[in-house]
């Protein structure tokens, strides 16, 4: 019985904190403990039967070997590309889809469909489209007189090709978030600006853009984190190849695990965790600080 009863909310009086224990227990066992134990095991070389402490060796190997380091570089590149493209293109699409056309509802559904299709199916589909000689994209380009483009095997293009497919898939959700944000803008602001003689571009820049900042932040953070952690699309389309050119951290981690190098794989996971945390948290705080509340 607490003396400070007056300051407790009704919810706190009815539900004791102890009701949280089962959920907390599951969370600790399934998420927290493995996270910390993987920090520990990343400093060892372990097999399924025993382990051997080797200090920072796994991390040193990761940063010295070009085939592993490229994963880190590509991950950041890939995250930046998909995030940037999604944020910009989805915004343009959302503006188009909030003009009050009759066909809007249908278009929004069409844009959203890729989100519900399995990523693996999309990856396999585009992989066959992008085949240098048999794929329909190159066959179409041939008709136009442009030669074969090696979408998935040219070092400079491969990562971009996969990023474009990722963007194609992710536009649905991003557009939807923007549309919701745009629809949430109070009509009085835009009407007042129209009366004052503001042009379309000016209205966009000074009214729409600032007021959808929360939506933009959501899209940015979600795309960034999703892009940094992408695995299935890359694995299905290139497998990290040819050679190691399109390896992301996630595929590197998977390959090391599949090859039985468990310590190295765990170290990779720790690095991925740190990369996502070090990029996502500062971005999140920076953006939410700038969010203006009207």
């Amino acid at each position, binding site marked *: 019985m607490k003396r400070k009863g007056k300051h407790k909310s009704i919810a706190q009086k009815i539900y004791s904190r102890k009701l949280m224990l089962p959920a907390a227990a599951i969370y600790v066992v399934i998420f927290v403990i493995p996270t910390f134990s993987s920090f520990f095991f990343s400093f060892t*070389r372990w*097999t*399924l*039967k025993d382990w051997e402490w080797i200090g920072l060796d796994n991390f040193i*190997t990761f940063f010295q*070997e*070009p*085939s592993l380091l490229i994963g880190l570089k590509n991950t950041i590149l890939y995250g930046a590309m998909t995030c940037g493209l999604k944020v910009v293109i989805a915004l343009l699409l959302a503006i188009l889809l909030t003009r009050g056309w009759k066909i809007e509802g249908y278009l929004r559904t069409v844009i959203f469909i890729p989100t519900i299709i399995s990523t693996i199916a999309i990856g396999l589909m585009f992989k066959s489209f992008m*085949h*240098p*000689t048999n794929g329909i994209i190159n066959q179409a380009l041939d008709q136009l007189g442009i030669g*074969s483009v*090696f979408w*998935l*095997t040219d*070092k400079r293009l491969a990562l971009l090709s996969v990023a474009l497919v990722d963007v194609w898939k992710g536009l649905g959700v991003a557009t939807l978030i923007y549309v919701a944000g745009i629809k949430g803008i109070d009509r009085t602001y835009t009407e007042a600006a129209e009366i004052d003689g503001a042009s379309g571009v000016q209205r966009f820049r000074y009214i729409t853009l600032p007021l959808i900042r929360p939506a933009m932040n959501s899209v940015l953070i979600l795309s960034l984190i999703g892009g940094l952690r992408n695995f299935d699309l890359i694995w299905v389309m290139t*497998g*990290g*190849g*040819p*050679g*190691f*050119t399109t390896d992301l951290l996630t595929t590197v981690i998977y*390959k090391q*695990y*599949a*090859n*039985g*190098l468990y310590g*190295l794989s765990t170290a990779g996971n720790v690095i991925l965790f740190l990369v996502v945390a070090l990029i996502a948290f500062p971005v999140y705080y920076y953006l939410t600080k700038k969010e203006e509340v009207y």
Partner: protein
Amino acid sequence: MKRRFYCAVMAGVMAAAMTGCGNTDSSKTTVAAGTENANVKGGELSILAPQNSVNDGTYAMVDAFEKKYGVKVSLELLPDNEAENLIRSRAATGDLGDIVDFHSGSQLSTLSPGDNLMDITGEGYLKNVDDTFLDCVTVDGKVYGTPVGPTYAGGVFYNKKIYEELKLEVPKTWEEFLENCSACQNAGYTGIIGTYGDAWTSQLLLLSDFYYLNSSEPDFAEKYTAGEVTLEDAPEYLKSLEKLAAQKEYFNADFLSSTNDDGCRMLVEGKGAHQIMRTREYNSMVESYPEAEELIGFFAVPGEDGSDSGITVWMPHGFYIAKNAKNLENAKLWQEFTTTEEAAKAYAAASSPMGPFMLKGVDLGNNVRPAIQEVMNYVEGRKSAPAMEFLCPVKGTNMAQICVQIGSGEISPEDGIKALHEDNKKSAQQLGLEGWK
């Protein structure tokens, strides 16, 4: 009222459907019980195998075994590129069933046979098995497996029609081979069909060339295992990598996306002249394109000078018994069966052998395809060496990708040899080999 009625009807329909499901097994066991003789053991056996390890010959062996002993065999196949990973994971959780089909040689160690597999040293049926194979399924002095099928060899498969048309002859040196490729290119065919879409095929040239390294330095594999030398200490190894890099000029334009199946089709259709692969892939090719039997020929990867030429032979996978196998007796019976001439004959009748069997006193019979006959000429002439992974337990896990890098010109052979050695080092350390720490 109406709702209750419909609910009752649905419940009745579902109950009827479920009673229909339960009775499929009893009919099978009666069939098995009917075809017996004095050897009846009955019971079950589960076999776990990668998809590409099983062919018509395997099925023939399974059928013969089922009929002979009245054992019901359930064969579970795993998708190729995940098979090793899945088998290792299932071994760790004790979920292998009774028999598992896995690599022999260096890769067997990655399955931790001491912990996961049944030791069969001293079993009577091992007398029938060739010693070379037994060495490849022995880890720390204990024997674990019997052969799943014949050995297979690697080399160059060529389209005989193109050779006739361009009046080319089987090359005796690597230079001559490249000249033949040039001639094919000039005539509008692809010189060498590259199939790097399946990354593992990139290694085949390097691995098949091992014959020359083994001939010039027979104890290299042993010294390498002990960590006394690096790959750069063997000049022949660098030469193999240079051969790998030389291919690029003659490759098809889409070599990085073509799969092995695409390549076989191009070879049979006459779009390309040469494809470097093994008799194992050749056999699958003939199963899909029967005309390949007469159309495709074989010669060993040529050496530097014309004095010697030989092939590299891969040991077959082994059938191993899981340590916690439930049907232990049937599992041993299966292993014994695979060492008999009966099983080899059943295999050879269904799927023409891809090389000699690893069983003593078993010959290949009459169903040998022309390309395989050419392989046998090398074997009988003692012009063959086992692939390096069967002489040395060290094999890095990224060899396929590094070979793709060398073959596509991304890195030079000199950088490649260093990368391969570093890769091998990681695996050697994971295995805890002395001399590598």
